[in-house]
């Protein structure tokens, strides 16, 4: 590929010798750039390649594997590759959603890092013309006993609360884990869900030659020059701190204006394409729109409104200033576009136009400072086949023995009469206790569509003017994934979907965020491979595709990787939103049942963590999981369910306690007798594919018949009633004590007022 060598700009100067290191490319990648461009790029062009070919923007280490994920299905309207994926929920309406990470920025500055993470995912969704209707977040910190973890948590939660509340998008759910491996490198993932009429869906692949290109929103500043692209593409603490860009500060107010203006532009059909500016700023937005549309683009950096003086073309092209969008106007509609910007008090400036020739031409006034084919930047980054060096941890066999008997012995040494106290401790533990101390700082109801907010197995949203609704949940299983990334990822998919099913919704699709360590190490490569394989297997078995996602690698500090952490966001559909499964304990006399698998163990459980046990074997029976989910939906369809609750952290005992907490009604139950599982394991052991169901007394046999039809094991545990949680023969606790432990546990762990 040869392009015009008529570079006259100041940036065309001879590149420095260490240019590759400076822009984060390897010698191999540098050679590839030269070969593709057919000449020595100038410094600005190198920088554009560096950002666009960064791990964060180019998915160099994951692309090949990501292609193995199932992405097709009857409901899929838009699969991976766009700003967000979308499913069709009927009558012309699409639900667009995606999860994104903002891990490294949050490690550096938790408040602004998390806030701008929310901002970024919102823009991904409204860039498609979809109005965001909900956000969710998945957070991973070190143990709350560590001051750093508490500081990060309060910053991150504060930032999410500040940004989402100000824009006015309800936060309806999330997930929080506390594990040692996240102490230095916390994870902050945010998911956004939006709705758009099918014929209003805006895509970034429809720019046409001759159309005007506008940049709208915030002034462009020196904040975060190539920040997200580079910061997220290397380990924290690696390299020099000079690589750390100045922190980006979000402006949710501006985001709100940008959102309203964008949605209005799409509604009026005044634009050909809209693209948000995220990592790699203007470079990424312009080259992606041009590449996807099969056109070129001419941009004059001198027209870009700036916040700082004397910014170079390099700084303007690579700034990651927040709250900016690239808007391509329909010919003849420029007046409407400008009027809408003005009305929303936004600064929108025409910075260039779309060209026929497939070249991205960057000029500074009359000087051309870069000319590159956009497809080279956007699509031609090398792909690495991590499978070639992937290898499981060498010592796996030695350090992860099957110590089930040791654990059982350890458990059995503890007197059974203390077991009630153990349940209270578990309920109050950071892994299990109510997250209200976090989500009460989020507006959960703005928009007046939240039927079930945080605290339920999944959130439920109605859609005004329609009978149907959607359900959303977000989950992860890092403790399991640490032992086996395949099972952990599959279990996370299963859990997210099971949560959606537990409110009576039919799963439609998932989005995933793969938070992993360094893929250049054999073990990291293996984890990446196994994680994606696990998601794939679960999606196939459960019949649900992946429509969007994000990969965050290099989550490692001083060579120590985090546990492989696949965060799964699930979306389901309810034909009649008033008929969701309510969050209730049921009524006195109702029957409490366990459905699915009774095969649980303390090895990868929260209880295990509390006694220092973390070991396999672990497994997931995806066929059983699929049957269980179908069975629950069928039971709900038949009107047989009063309540349902996923068995998750803390095992059956916690699931029963959480059910009792809902209406503060007790229950009297007996543990299922399963061979080879002792009482403690039966109470606190964890394992996928289990749910507690509550049914009216007259419907028990109906439910059993349905279960048999679906080949799903069920156990009748007992009945609702009284003000004690009685689990015979081991414990009896007043509901009030459960309420207190659960409600105040996390606040206490964080050293705050409950």
């Amino acid at each position, binding site marked *: 590929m040869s392009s015009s060598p008529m570079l006259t700009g100041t940036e065309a100067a001879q590149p420095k010798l260490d240019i590759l290191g400076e822009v984060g490319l390897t010698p191999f990648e540098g050679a590839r750039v030269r070969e593709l461009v057919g000449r020595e790029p100038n410094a600005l062009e190198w920088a554009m390649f560096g950002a666009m070919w960064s791990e964060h923007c180019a998915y160099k280490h994951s692309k090949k594997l990501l292609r193995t994920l199932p992405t097709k299905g009857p409901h899929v309207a838009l699969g991976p590759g766009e700003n967000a994926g979308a499913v069709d929920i009927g009558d012309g309406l699409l639900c667009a959603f995606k999860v994104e990470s903002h891990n490294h920025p949050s490690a550096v500055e938790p408040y602004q890092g998390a806030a701008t993470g929310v901002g970024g995912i919102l823009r991904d969704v409204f860039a498609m013309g979809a109005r965001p209707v909900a956000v969710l977040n998945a957070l991973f910190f070190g143990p709350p006993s560590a001051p750093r973890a508490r500081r990060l948590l309060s910053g991150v939660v504060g930032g999410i*609360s500040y940004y989402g*509340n*100000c*824009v*006015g998008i309800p936060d309806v759910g999330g997930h929080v884990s506390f594990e040692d491996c996240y102490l230095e490198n916390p994870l902050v993932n945010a998911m956004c869900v939006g709705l758009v009429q099918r014929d209003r869906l805006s895509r970034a692949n429809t720019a046409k030659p001759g159309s005007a290109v506008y940049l709208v929103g915030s002034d462009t500043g020196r904040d975060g020059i190539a920040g997200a692209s580079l910061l997220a593409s290397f380990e924290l603490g690696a390299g020099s701190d000079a690589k750390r860009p100045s922190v980006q500060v979000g402006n949710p107010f501006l985001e709100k204006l940008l959102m309203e203006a964008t949605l209005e532009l799409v509604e009026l059909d005044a634009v050909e394409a809209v693209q948000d500016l995220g990592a790699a700023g203007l470079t990424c937005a312009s080259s992606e729109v041009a590449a996807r549309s099969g056109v070129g683009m001419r941009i004059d950096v001198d027209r870009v409104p700036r916040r700082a003086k004397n910014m170079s073309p390099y700084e303007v092209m690579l700034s990651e200033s927040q709250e900016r969008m690239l808007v391509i106007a329909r010919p003849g509609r420029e007046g409407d576009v400008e009027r809408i910007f003005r009305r929303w008090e936004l600064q929108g400036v025409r910075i260039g136009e779309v060209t026929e020739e497939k070249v991205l031409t960057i000029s500074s006034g009359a000087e051309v400072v870069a000319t590159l084919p956009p497809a080279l930047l956007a699509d031609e980054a090398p792909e690495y086949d991590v499978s070639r060096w992937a290898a499981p941890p060498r010592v796996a066999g030695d350090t992860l023995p099957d110590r089930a008997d040791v654990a059982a012995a350890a458990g059995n040494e503890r007197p059974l009469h203390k077991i009630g106290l153990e349940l209270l401790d578990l309920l109050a533990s950071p892994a299990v206790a109510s997250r209200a101390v976090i989500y009460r*700082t*989020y*507006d959960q109801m703005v928009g007046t569509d939240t039927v079930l907010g945080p605290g339920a197995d999944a959130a439920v949203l*109605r859609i005004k003017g329609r009978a149907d609704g959607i359900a959303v949940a977000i989950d992860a299983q890092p403790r399991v994934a640490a032992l086996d990334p395949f099972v952990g990822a599959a279990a996370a998919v299963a859990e997210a979907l099971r949560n959606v099913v537990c409110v009576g919704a039919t799963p439609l699709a998932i989005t995933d965020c793969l938070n992993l360590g360094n893929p250049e190490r054999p073990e990291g490569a293996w984890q990446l491979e196994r994680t994606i394989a696990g998601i794939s297997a679960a999606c196939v078995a459960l019949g649900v595709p992946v429509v969007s996602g994000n990969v965050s690698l290099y989550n490692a500090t001083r060579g120590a990787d985090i546990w492989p952490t696949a965060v799964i966001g699930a979306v389901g559909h309810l034909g009649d939103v008033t008929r969701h499964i309510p969050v209730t304990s049921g009524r006195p006399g109702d029957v409490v049942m366990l459905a699915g698998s009774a095969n649980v163990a303390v090895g990868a459980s929260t209880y295990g963590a509390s006694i220092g046990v973390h070991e396999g074997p672990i497994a997931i029976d995806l066929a059983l999981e699929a049957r269980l989910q179908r069975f629950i939906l069928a039971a709900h369809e038949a009107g047989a369910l009063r309540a349902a609750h996923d068995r998750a952290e803390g095992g059956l005992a916690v699931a029963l306690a959480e059910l009792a907490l809902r209406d503060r009604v007790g229950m009297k139950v007996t543990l299922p007798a399963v061979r080879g599982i002792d009482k403690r394991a039966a109470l606190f052991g964890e394992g996928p594919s289990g749910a507690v169901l509550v049914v009216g007394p007259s419907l028990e046999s109906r439910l059993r018949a349905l279960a048999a039809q679906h080949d799903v094991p069920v156990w009748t545990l007992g009945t609702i009633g009284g003000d004690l949680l009685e689990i015979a023969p081991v414990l009896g606790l007043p509901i009030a004590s459960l309420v207190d432990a659960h409600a105040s546990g996390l606040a206490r762990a964080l050293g705050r007022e409950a």
Partner: protein
Amino acid sequence: MTRVAILRYPGTWSERDFQHALSLVPGVESDILWHEDADLKGYDAAVVPGGFTYGDYVRAGAIAKLSPATRELRRFADAGKLVLGSCNGFQILCEAGLLPGALVRNRGLEFRCDWVHLRVERDDTPWTTGLRDAVLRMPIAHGEGCWVADDETLADVESRGQVVFRYTDERGGATAAANPNGSLANIAGVCNEGRNVVGLMPHPERCSEALLGGTDGYRVLANLAPALAGTAPALYR
């Protein structure tokens, strides 16, 4: 038809929620008006909804009060028309001097979204007709909802009966524990001396349907049409 104008400023986010909730009230029709050119002629009532106008920078409602809409609201209120401000709308009305006191950061400095109980202190406002002593359950969602005033203003507000809503427990007790934000005297909402302008921090528009967890907000909004039509047992006949 009772015509209601819902004001929308840059950063407002409850305007469509209010419009939806008001659409459930028979005899009420509403329009969303842009703050810059809001013309309230022909409307019976105006709602200043919640949001983060101008990002709540400086103080919640401080920049919004500079909008031309404030002049229009003042004229409208002086003419005896009905004004309701909720959440950020309450903050704007206080900033604009249409209601007494000011709203500062919550005790605890945290944004709070939760359900609270409110006791209705006065039924002689158009929004609380027939609700005297009722204990309502409503959501709040704010970071700056702590109502404060100097001692003299507080004494005046109390003695003139301008306190319309107080945070209470579910039995109507105005306890410290029931106060979610540290407001003086548990004050959740006040009215002007003319009683036609009412502001409160909670969100009636969020609890006007059983599907969303409560209908007490509807009891407030539904007062509107009868109050204006003269069919309610109110002062506002």
